[in-house]
């Protein structure tokens, strides 16, 4: 029979490292339902009957963040056979606070006392045997990074799970408060039930989620008793309970932890932090690291050396060549078999779809190798610390800076980078506004219009203003979303600044690999299906295969062009451009090349680079409507690859569609304003 063991612990306590060490590569990553919180499970590599569930990192089981609710719902409702509570020995007091709350649920629990090497390096001593005796649960010293103590830990956890050995309620509360809590438990149906006791504590803590679930016939009595509990706690039982837990922990720590002589010395981490968050140096160092992150992933002139591709671009080039080599071979073979024109078309569009997925993989890989290094080393928390002052004005946290910066390269890894944000709300908003950052694939569109319609004006200014427009709309969008869509959720910046640590190669590699695999599988299906659909629409009409001018897509363009008329480009070709742009934004130029004058592929490339004009588009566009069209394509739904990444990160179609809807609406309003106001001025 299989047993389930859940891992619970504070953020930065080494939980992910432990999870990787005990599961090896047998992992499955997804989302918890309804929230953007990652769900990971795996199988113990030494016993495949043991399922390991990685709970989100939390400091508490209070009901205030998505992570906390997910973690406690799992512990209380799904009832794993045992919980391994990872405690960072270097900040043992704060970590034991979660231990107290896990013990209150009375679920069988084992404490893994992690980072014992660092504890000893400081000259401190933690007496795990003594702590185990006082708490009445196993406490196993480990070093997750090196794997030390993990066998003992897993043996203890499996034994605890098999015996279903429930911990006692730790003696946290004074007698008055303890009596008040057991009175609430009695009113819920009996203080002998572990569940009622836990609920009673939560009710005394003023927990609204638990309070709503109290049956209506008991509500009145329970409310009275909660008031009584507050009365014996100077009016605030929630504060008294938190305080009592910490008082008890202080006693435990006094008994079990011996501070060494090196206690007051500066650690290496402190010295490093003095430089990295220095008043004067912090921002230049931060800018330098961000430049390197961006350059390593996207730059074509790496480190300002002309024509030297960055690792990301270099890998992408290799993958692209390999894809087109395979594609040509396959298409040649299909043609050789004498397949009909539509069959060849279908095969080549399928290959395009697959190629689109593969083409993004190197970018995702390189970015996430670097990102997980920054995340695991502790620097990302300092990024938030340094940037918070600016981003708070938009209702976001400093960490939103990273996905938004990456958005200038490519929305796909940028959206995936939003996973590192602290709160569910910040993640959701950041994902909605990140595609407003003008990605690399949108530049050819601007180049085409700049060369054709703005030949006499300052083309650089035109393109630059579009980039600025994206940033401004993103900021306004964040403000509006914060004010109206997410107003109930308060944001705070009360967070830990963890010690700097050099991450293990293994954890960095596993993290990057997970991202690549997740993107290929989850986003791949979206990209593939939509690419084939657009191909079908653009090469068929009801009587069979045809040119794009007569295709279903052209009819669709004619059908929807009225929507765009108020924006200044109510033309079927412009409409078709918007649709083909969803496969990849630079497709718009190729589509225009075909629909406005059937120009050669070389001309299209020159137009993309802004070296040649496409005079025929002046039939449809003037300067104002061209600007509106650029703005629309900047802001409207990103390419299918980005939508796929969004779907993966949101974990639900509902939120993905909301985000796309928000982007479409924003694009429409902004383009409308540009057209109306612009037409009045020019």
């Amino acid at each position, binding site marked *: 029979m299989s047993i389930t063991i859940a891992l619970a612990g504070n953020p930065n306590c080494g939980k992910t490292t432990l999870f990787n060490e005990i599961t090896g590569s047998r992992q499955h990553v997804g989302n918890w339902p309804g929230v953007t919180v990652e769900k990971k499970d795996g199988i113990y590599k030494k016993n495949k009957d043991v399922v390991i569930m990685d709970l989100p990192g939390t*400091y*508490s089981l*209070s009901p*205030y963040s998505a992570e906390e609710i997910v973690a406690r719902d799992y512990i209380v409702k799904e009832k794993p056979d045992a919980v391994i509570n990872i405690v960072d020995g*270097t*900040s*043992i*007091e*704060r970590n034991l*606070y979660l231990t107290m709350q896990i013990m209150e649920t009375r679920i069988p629990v084992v404490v893994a006392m992690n980072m014992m090497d660092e504890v000893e390096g400081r000259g401190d001593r933690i007496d795990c045997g003594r702590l185990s005796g006082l708490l009445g649960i196993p406490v196993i010293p480990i070093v997750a990074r090196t794997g030390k103590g993990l066998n003992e830990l897993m043996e203890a956890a499996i034994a605890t799970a098999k015996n279903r050995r429930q911990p006692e309620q730790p003696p946290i509360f004074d007698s008055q408060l303890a009596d008040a809590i057991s009175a609430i438990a009695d009113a819920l149906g009996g203080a002998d039930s572990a569940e009622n006791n836990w609920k009673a504590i939560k009710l005394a*803590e003023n927990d609204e989620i638990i309070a709503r679930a109290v049956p209506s016939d008991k509500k009145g009595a329970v409310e009275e008793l909660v008031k009584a509990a507050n009365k014996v706690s100077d009016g605030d039982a*929630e*504060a008294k309970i*938190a*305080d009592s837990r*910490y*008082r008890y922990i202080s006693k435990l720590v006094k008994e079990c932890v011996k501070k060494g002589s090196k206690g007051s010395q500066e650690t290496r981490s402190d010295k490093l932090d003095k430089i990295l*968050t*220095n*008043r*004067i140096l*912090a*921002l230049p160092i931060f800018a330098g690291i961000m430049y390197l992150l961006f350059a390593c992933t996207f730059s074509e002139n790496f480190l300002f050396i002309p024509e030297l591709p960055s690792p990301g671009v270099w890998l992408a080039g290799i993958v692209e060549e390999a894809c087109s080599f395979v594609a040509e071979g396959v298409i040649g073979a299909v043609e050789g078999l004498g397949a009909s024109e539509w069959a060849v078309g279908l095969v080549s569009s399928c290959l395009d779809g697959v190629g689109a997925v593969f083409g993004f993989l190197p970018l995702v890989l390189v970015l996430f190798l670097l990102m997980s290094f920054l995340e695991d080393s502790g620097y990302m*928390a300092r990024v938030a*610390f*340094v940037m*918070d*002052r*600016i981003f*708070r004005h938009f209702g976001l946290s400093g960490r939103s800076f990273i996905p938004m910066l990456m958005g200038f390269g490519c929305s796909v890894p940028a959206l995936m980078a939003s996973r590192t944000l602290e709160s569910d709300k910040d993640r959701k908003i950041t994902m909605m506004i990140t595609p407003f950052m003008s990605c690399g694939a949108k530049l050819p569109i601007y180049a085409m219009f700049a060369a054709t319609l703005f030949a006499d004006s300052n083309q650089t200014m035109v393109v630059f203003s579009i980039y600025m427009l994206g940033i401004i709309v993103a900021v306004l969008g964040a403000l509006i979303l914060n004010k109206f869509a997410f107003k109930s959720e*308060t944001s*705070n*910046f*009360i*967070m*830990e*600044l*963890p010690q700097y640590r050099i991450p293990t190669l293994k954890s960095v590699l596993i993290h990057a690999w997970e991202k690549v695999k997740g993107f290929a599988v989850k986003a791949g299906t979206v990209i593939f299906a939509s690419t084939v659909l657009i191909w079908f629409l653009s090469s068929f009409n009801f009587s069979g295969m045809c040119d794009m001018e007569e295709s279903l897509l052209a009819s669709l363009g004619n059908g929807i062009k009225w929507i765009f008329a108020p924006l200044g480009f109510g033309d079927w070709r412009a409409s078709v451009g918007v649709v083909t742009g969803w496969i990849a934004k630079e497709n718009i130029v190729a589509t225009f090349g075909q629909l406005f004058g059937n120009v050669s592929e070389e001309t299209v490339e020159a137009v993309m680079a802004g070296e040649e004009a496409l005079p025929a588009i002046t039939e449809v566009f003037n300067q104002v409507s061209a600007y509106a069209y650029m703005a629309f394509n900047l802001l409207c739904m990103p390419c299918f690859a980005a939508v796929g990444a969004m779907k993966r990160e949101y974990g639900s179609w509902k939120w993905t569609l909301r985000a796309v809807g928000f982007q479409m609406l924003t694009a429409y309003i902004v383009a409308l304003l540009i057209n109306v106001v612009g037409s009045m001025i020019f």
Partner: protein
Amino acid sequence: MTLRDLKPGQQGKVTGISTTGAMKRRIMDMGVTPGVEIRVVKVAPLGDPVEVNVRGYELSLRKDEAAQVEIRM
């Protein structure tokens, strides 16, 4: 006085938390409870938030949040 009034290097003892609800809970969950010693380590380069040392680890919080923590030097 409050935690906000302390300068980097200064230390005080927490006497109470003056806010309520989710923020109070969060502050207390992180170990800032009455009686605990708290020391301001530094202020962020842009002037806000601040970094404090409490219960042996580094915590950051905004100045507005620090203003909710009552202390005695």
